[in-house]
């Protein structure tokens, strides 16, 4: 079975599929057409990978966590309600799985780099080696507290509205604004010397 579709950004910042809609695909899956789920995977996989990679900082963990989130979403499709959009519904599951993965990783001793001096030194080396700007940004992002990292990624990388972020994270809008503000200040402090 093949499906064609068009995507557009909705007012909350999510890409919304209109032909067929995500909701229609969910209904097909619930009626037994498991391959319709492949269309949902194709539409949302890259966005989910990006979120997971930026939250977890490791591509292997990101792919594993995204797969876990999609499988859990598939199993829970029976509880998906059409009045809710699929993208934020899936993102909520993904963020919960990323939090679980982060928590587990901390317990297993795999923590983010949080030594400011080490980050600065690494950034300097990369710059001398040819300016690996993205690597510097990734290290600075990893140095943020988890709640600031999550808020910054959802706001500025995924460009979501605060109300949508609140629906995904369970945090209040004011708290999210404060987290983003602090994340921006912290990133600026970590990266300003490398930005020219």
């Amino acid at each position: 079975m093949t499906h064609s579709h068009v995507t557009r950004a909705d007012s909350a910042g999510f890409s919304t599929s209109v032909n067929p809609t995500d909701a229609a695909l969910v209904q097909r899956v619930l009626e037994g057409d498991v391959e319709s789920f492949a269309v949902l995977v194709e539409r949302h996989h890259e966005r989910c990978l990006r979120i997971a990679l930026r939250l977890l900082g490791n591509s292997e963990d990101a792919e594993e966590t995204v797969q876990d989130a999609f499988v859990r979403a598939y199993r829970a499709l029976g509880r998906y309600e059409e009045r809710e959009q699929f993208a934020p519904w899936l993102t909520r599951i993904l963020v919960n799985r990323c939090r679980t993965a982060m928590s587990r990783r901390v317990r297993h001793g795999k923590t983010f780099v949080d030594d400011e001096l080490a980050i600065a030194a690494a950034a300097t080396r990369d710059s001398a080696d040819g300016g690996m700007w993205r690597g510097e940004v990734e290290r600075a992002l990893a140095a943020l507290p988890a709640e600031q990292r999550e808020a910054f990624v959802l706001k500025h990388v995924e460009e979501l509205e605060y109300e949508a972020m609140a629906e995904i994270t369970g945090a209040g809008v004011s708290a999210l604004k404060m987290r983003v503000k602090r994340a921006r200040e912290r990133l600026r402090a970590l990266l300003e010397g490398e930005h020219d």
Partner: protein
Amino acid sequence: MMYRDEMETALEARIASALREGVASTPEARERLMRAIRASAPPVRGAGDDADLVAGAVPLRAARPFWRSPAFGLLAAASIAGVIALVRAIGVEGPIPEVPGQQRIAARQETARVPESVVAPAAAAGNVADGRARVARVQFVFVAPQARRVAVVGDFNDWDVAASPLTSSGGVWSRQLDVPFGRHDYAFVVDGERWVRDPNAPQAPADEFGGGYSVLVVNENSGAHR
């Protein structure tokens, strides 16, 4: 207080742009994912675990875990003797009996506006023969008359909220699990969203996400095992 929502500087715009790069969804990765989907049980309307569907169901960082609150401190100090008595009364095998101290503890919780208390896990009698790792059977008991559901999560079940639900008998939630020898962090999850540590167990050092989990050590002295 006003916040500026838009990226304000060229530096911040470059940060966001860099973080959008370097990620690609490949057909191979999507196919691996679909293989996992096809191997899963099909979804059923109205059914399915909702533990991951609640925003913030997994705590990013406990801003103020209730076990660190003044109310909980008072509760823990006041009820510790009753909790110990309850552990002894419950025993380690079979259904949870009526426990005289149970209502007393619940009443104290009502007074303190904290609806549950925790009873330390007790190593159970009876050997567990899985032929591989050495394990001991541990009974987890949690008093929460007002809870709709309770689960235990820990290193032994990958912190999966759906893996080990407790069953209720008059508000006393319990479950036996075979736990491998070793040290395990664990916690209880109430109604899929509130993580609660055991006040009568040692506490692990805090981590990035708030930490403060309870510590369970399973060894030769934990009870019956093999």
